[in-house]
């Protein structure tokens, strides 16, 4: 599974390919290394991705939708903090149609439907914020990354979306995103590499290379503990999230924090948060931790959804588990279990062509190279219990943000 080929188009666009014989669908991902971090206004990256399916010089939005659906071709754009990704997936027989469509939307989109798309986007954001959990996370992210593009959360986008003009979109797309030096194709399927390269060269090899330096993105800072809350009527549960800044994906602490995360709460039914707060104390159905590694820093969170009168108990429960990681060495057995768990789960996340195409391109666009997708295995195997204690002390001794959503009478004054 780990082998892949690395090529380049004549304008330096990287092409990563892996052949998986006898698979009916091909996955093509195209990454552009921009994302929210290059936004001048919150929401530009998302709106750009959406507008890439809203019409080209020769196709209307409806034409695009019809052509995709009639051929069962999946094409969508995902805008994250550090990149925009086109996800294309199709039955092998539809390769030509799929790649023609991708070429058209990437090269010839007009972005003219901006007003309509802005309204649609706004409606969808409002819908998402009707979820109390989304609201609590939104508040956390916005607070942690205040004045930083990583903090372009739903509510921040709602604030700035009205100000985005078509010129902003075009500037962002043509000058910050569609830059061959910062573009990667990753393709996995029952493919012929030479045929793929030829098809991509003829369609994307002539995109102009532009001489644009990397845009400075500051490293986010969190200088004080913060507590934010939302009082929401009719909320049956309290939503509690605590977040810390974490190492960036290329940081030396990333593997140790990844294993720590398995032990604490990212994984299934046997993590510490799950067994302590759910199994033993019956505080929640959903409790977990999460590590989101970004290019310039990461975000570590612990989350629980609980009965509102449990807020204090849950925060204390978080503290107990975090302090245990800081003060006690993880046993060899638990450590080995966590390492193996991660490696097994990794196989689970790499099962489909689509998942594999994502990871190849993802690690490369994040600046650590597609090889990292297999290098990480070795790094995980080498994590020690001392490493875990060290990173626990390093990151969990820093400032944190606590975000709580609950009915007003349950929201504490301070935490």
């Amino acid at each position, binding site marked *: 599974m780990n082998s892949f080929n690395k090529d380049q188009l004549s304008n330096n666009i990287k092409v990563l390919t892996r052949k998986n014989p006898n698979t009916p669908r091909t996955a093509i991902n195209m990454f552009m290394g921009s994302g929210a971090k290059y936004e001048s206004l919150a929401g530009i990256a998302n709106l750009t991705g959406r507008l890439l399916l809203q019409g080209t010089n020769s196709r209307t939005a409806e034409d695009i939708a019809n052509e995709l659906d009639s051929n069962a071709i999946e094409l969508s754009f995902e805008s994250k903090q550090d990149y925009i990704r086109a996800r294309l997936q199709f039955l092998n027989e539809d390769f030509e149609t799929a790649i023609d469509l991708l070429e058209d939307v990437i090269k010839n989109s007009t972005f003219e439907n901006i007003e*309509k798309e802005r309204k649609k986007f706004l409606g969808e954001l409002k819908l998402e914020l009707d979820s109390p959990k989304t609201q609590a996370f939104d508040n956390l992210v916005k607070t942690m990354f205040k004045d930083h593009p990583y903090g372009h959360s739903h509510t921040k986008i709602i604030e700035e979306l009205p100000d985005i003009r078509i010129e902003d979109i075009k500037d962002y797309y043509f000058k910050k995103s569609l830059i061959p030096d910062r573009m990667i194709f990753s393709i996995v399927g029952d493919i012929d590499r030479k045929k793929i390269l030829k098809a991509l060269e003829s369609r994307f090899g002539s995109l102009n290379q532009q001489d644009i330096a990397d845009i400075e993105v500051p490293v986010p800072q969190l200088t004080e503990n913060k507590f934010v809350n939302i009082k929401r009527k009719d909320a049956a549960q309290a939503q509690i999230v605590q977040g810390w800044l974490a190492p960036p994906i290329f940081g030396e602490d990333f593997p140790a924090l990844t294993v720590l995360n398995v032990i604490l709460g990212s994984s299934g039914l046997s993590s510490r948060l799950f*067994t302590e707060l759910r199994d033993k104390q*019956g505080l929640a159905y959903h409790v977990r931790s999460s590590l989101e590694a970004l290019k310039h820093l990461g975000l570590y969170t612990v989350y629980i959804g609980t009965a509102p*009168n449990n807020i204090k108990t849950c925060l204390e429960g978080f503290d107990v588990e975090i302090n245990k990681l800081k003060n006690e060495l993880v046993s060899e057995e638990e450590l080995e279990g966590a390492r193996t*768990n991660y490696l*097994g789960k990794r196989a689970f996340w790499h099962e489909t062509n689509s998942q594999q195409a994502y990871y190849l391109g993802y690690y490369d666009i994040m600046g650590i190279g597609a090889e990292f997708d297999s290098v990480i295995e070795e790094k995980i195997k080498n994590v020690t219990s001392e490493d875990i204690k060290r990173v626990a002390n390093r990151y969990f001794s820093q400032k944190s943000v606590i975000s709580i959503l609950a009915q007003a009478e349950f929201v504490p004054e301070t935490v």
Partner: protein
Amino acid sequence: MNVPPPEIKTRDNIKFPYVDRPVEIYKLDNGHTLIIAHKPGKLVNISTWVKTGSINEDDSITGISHFLEHLMFKGTPDHPAGEFDRTLESKGAVVNAATWKDYTFYYVTLPKGENNENLKQAVELHADMMLNPLLPDDEIGPVFDPESSEVGEKRERFVVIEEIRMRDDNNWTKTFDELNSLMYRVHPYKRDVIGTAEVIATVSRETIMNYYKSWYTPENMFTIIAGEVDSEEVIGLIRKNFRFPDERKSAELHYEQEPEQTEPRYIENTRKELNTGFIMSGFHGPKPKGLKENICLDIVSTVLGEGKSSRMYQNLIEKQKEPVFNVTGTAQYEFREGNIFLVQANFIPEKKEKALELLKAEIRKITEEPVQEHELKKAKKRLKAGFANDSETVSDLGEVIGHFMTVYEDITCYSNYLDVLNSITADDILQAAKKYLDLNKISISVLMPA
């Protein structure tokens, strides 16, 4: 173990689209069914589907199928609570379970390991969990009054009550649950799978154990192994480990059938501080086993509401001058005794009347005019691609087999699907749409900001 291993009674195999080797079905002499699906790769998915769910409940035990699902993880005489999860997750497994109206299933997906060591261990632990659960009182937790703020030890009862609370905060779930109770008045499908806090807080261990013994019988269980495995080895593992310790026969299931709905039904609920409104409307659909009508409605769903080229997305979102809807969609939820055809949307609350009117107009149209040729072609292609999707992971493959075994009660429906699909005409679809999507029999659940 004194019980002798079961013998194989019948062997069948069946060809699946996009799966190279035939899927093998073994009926054992104790009634248990084993299905093996071969898929190349390191991962293997092991699951057991039990043909029991909320359909097997009444008001006094609503939610018991799902509560039992939680408690099945709480240990056996050989493996105390937590060992199953810990042992398998430390081998890289994904372990979980789910309960729905017609079935409850438990699964493990993990790397097979060197010499299939993990596979062997997973089958052993999984079988032990399915056959010998202790349902310990101290894990269930003491009975309590859910209305009282004074509570004792919080154990699994509380976990499920938190799950109820979590679902209550989910607007789509809430809207669906209200729709469901609007559509069914007597049939046991009327109850929410999750049950009520009252039952979960008070149901006794004995009642749960009785329920387990009544329905977790060999004849009600389908064990599915999907992955790159040796059939003989798997058969050996199943025969060795699935030795039911007692003579279990399923209890008889009695319930009332739902009388035909003859009138439109409507319910509107409110919630404070919502930005948007939610609609879920439903029609009683065909039984899954009636494959042709079922597929006709899959096509209707595709044409009407799946994907950005669908009629609803184009007409109700893309082409409206001023927005009415935020999202729209359709789906067919398959249930053994009859599907629910769902038309759902999220909308701008001030435009509720217009939203309802527009949705109904789209439904009406598909019952009055045949779908166009290009729409039919598109739907067929999309449904075909769905089969490619099903075969991409061992988990999906396992899940689709389990679903067809318990909901369709006939795995050949899966292998015949594409042939039947190819034969369907625009007129077939029109007839099915007329029959099932009658606006005089629509049920509508709306959730609005208070």
